[in-house]
């Protein structure tokens, strides 16, 4: 450590090694990942995000949704991801190649959202809007999500009621002559959430752990 330049060089090498070992190597493996062309369907997957969904992803990032929600279905032997109906297969790197800012997330205070657009029964935009406004899952009375009322405008009804206005009941009914209308942010966010739909089965998303599956099957 007495040799200053050598010490400095050591520091640089330490950082570069780990960068090369994790980022550069994985870039070598995944950086050139292309969409998968399916000849039977004459289409390539994943599909590109519609523009409004790409804008919605920015709203998702700005509000920090990733602090409570993940966007990844883990491998079949990991947790209850598949059993909870978050997807029919594990997420693979190819699912994300068109996303400008990938937010896999690190916390599951709330459910995973990877395939929100493919849930059964399906959510529609109206349901999600109401959920964001009230914080209550449709059909329940408990607030489980912070109500994002700032994504909505309360406006006076001039002429006809807006087509987008929320049809709210109970304690949330707006005052007479008023309506609750989603802002552009809310519309893009919901469009993004509904665009999350990675159901196409890539060749690499199917490698079930064969050796592992056999003894389990034998037990059953």
């Amino acid at each position, binding site marked *: *450590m007495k040799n*200053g330049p050598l010490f400095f060089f*050591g*520091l*640089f090498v*330490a*950082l570069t*090694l*780990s*960068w090369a070992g*994790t*980022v550069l190597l*994985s*870039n070598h493996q*995944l*950086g050139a*990942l292309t969409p998968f062309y399916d000849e039977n369907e004459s289409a390539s997957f994943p599909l590109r995000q519609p523009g409004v969904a790409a804008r919605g992803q920015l709203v*998702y*990032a*700005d*509000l*920090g*949704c*990733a*602090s409570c929600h993940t966007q*990844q279905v*883990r491998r079949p*032997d*990991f*947790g*209850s991801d598949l059993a909870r*109906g978050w997807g029919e297969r594990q*997420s*693979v*790197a*190819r*699912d994300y*190649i068109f996303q*400008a*800012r*990938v937010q*896999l*997330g*690190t*916390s*599951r*205070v*709330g*459910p995973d959202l990877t395939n929100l657009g493919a849930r059964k029964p399906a959510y529609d935009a109206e349901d999600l809007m109401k959920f964001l406004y009230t*914080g209550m899952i449709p059909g*329940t009375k*408990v*607030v*489980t*999500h*912070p*109500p*994002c*009322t*700032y994504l909505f405008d309360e406006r006076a009804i001039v002429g006809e009621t807006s087509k987008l206005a929320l049809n709210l009941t109970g304690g949330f009914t707006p005052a007479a002559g008023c309506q609750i209308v989603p802002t552009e942010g809310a519309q893009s966010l919901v469009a993004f959430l509904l665009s999350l739909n990675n159901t196409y089965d890539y060749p690499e998303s199917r490698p079930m752990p064969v050796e592992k599956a056999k003894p389990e099957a034998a037990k059953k």
Partner: protein
Amino acid sequence: MTTVQTNASHEVTAIDTAARWPLLLLIHASIKWLVLSGVLALIGSIQLVQPVFLSTCAIFAHGRIVAMQESIFIYGWAANAGLALALWILGRLGGSPLRAMNWVVVGTLAWNVALVLGLIGIATGDATSIAFLQLPRYVQLLMVVAYGAIAVPGVLAWAGRRTEGTFAAQWYAVAALFLFPWLFSAAQLMLLWSPVRGTLQAVAGGWFSQGIWTLWLAPLALAPAYYIVPKVTGRALPSYEFAPHSFWCLLVVGGFTGGRHLVGGPVPAWIASLAIVSCVLLLFHYFVVFMNLRGGLGRGSTASRLVAVGLLAYVLGGLVDAITAFRGVAAITQFTFVEVAQQQLALYAGFTLILLGAIYFAVPRLLGRGWFSANLVIGHAAIAFTGVALLVVSLLGAGWVQGHDLLDAKISFADIAIHTRPWLLAATAAQGILLLGNLLLLVNFLETACAGCCASATPTENPFREPSTMEATAS
């Protein structure tokens, strides 16, 4: 590392007086950020048990609160305090007064202005949603430049050191000074200016956020720890010959723990495997740190007790990190509050307690006068120990319950929220306790600095004090 100074007249030297006000400026900023980060942590914690709390205002959206709290904690508290102590140590061990301290003042102002602008950016909708890199990209360039300015005296002190050998405290301080700008700018390039493709962003983000811990924050905490413990015990460090190996182990292996949180995710499995192996190899580093600094446990002043508990938490944090990295354990603990608990164990109980102890140690020596109130110091330490223990234990409990509930697909998220609620209430209480403690520090610091400010106008008849009166001793 046997630079034990028993002579009181060596306790406050020209090295300290030259660096006094610039370093106190850094420490001052750091303490205010620590308090603000505590306020936000409390709000965020309340929101977890009461989702309606402050949720109608976009600025207080939970995600934004988390992003702001994290940024303030790392770039406000940790950076300012860590840099102040690293510079102080480099000056003292370098053997001559720090030069170019004007750069520190300019850099500190620029860094904190950039941080304020960045926080306004997050509050108004420019958060990046990348862990530890939440600040919008338009302030990050300024932050790199400001960091460089603050680091100048440290680099000069290292390059112009008068001592023959070097000390572990110096290695860690210099490593932190150099590694952060590289790490930070590489991450900005890969994630914000010219983002890499798809899930590579998660890999690069993981490399950055783990790097911030192992290559920057951990060295920033170990530098004062390696400086203070031998000073307090008055003995050479045991097993010191292993310290260089431990140092290089942290830097070389630490960077490879980046895939730590990607277990089971949509990235090649080798990335996670590499990270798991690295987390285990890193135990060597933690073990050597424990062997070196175990002498600091259980003796000395309040300041050194804070450092000692911090070190214990630092080592424990590494151990928990290694255990929860394993796939079998991660299957339960991944994405739960256990990971938050591990982070708090390392960042709060480890890093913050060491730095708080170091601040309690350094400020009297910088100012040449003792703390305004010894009772406030003792009170803060007691509150901090209670709060940290409660926080980590309650988050571990919440995570354990949450992890097991998540495994059972029949348990809904509403039920999980009900099951974790008591634990999260305890964590909220802990955040309140910690905030209270840090307020005590703020009051004490302001009083001490003001007294020092007024007194320094007239030369004191005896600027040198016995070391024992410098610290608020509780024993």
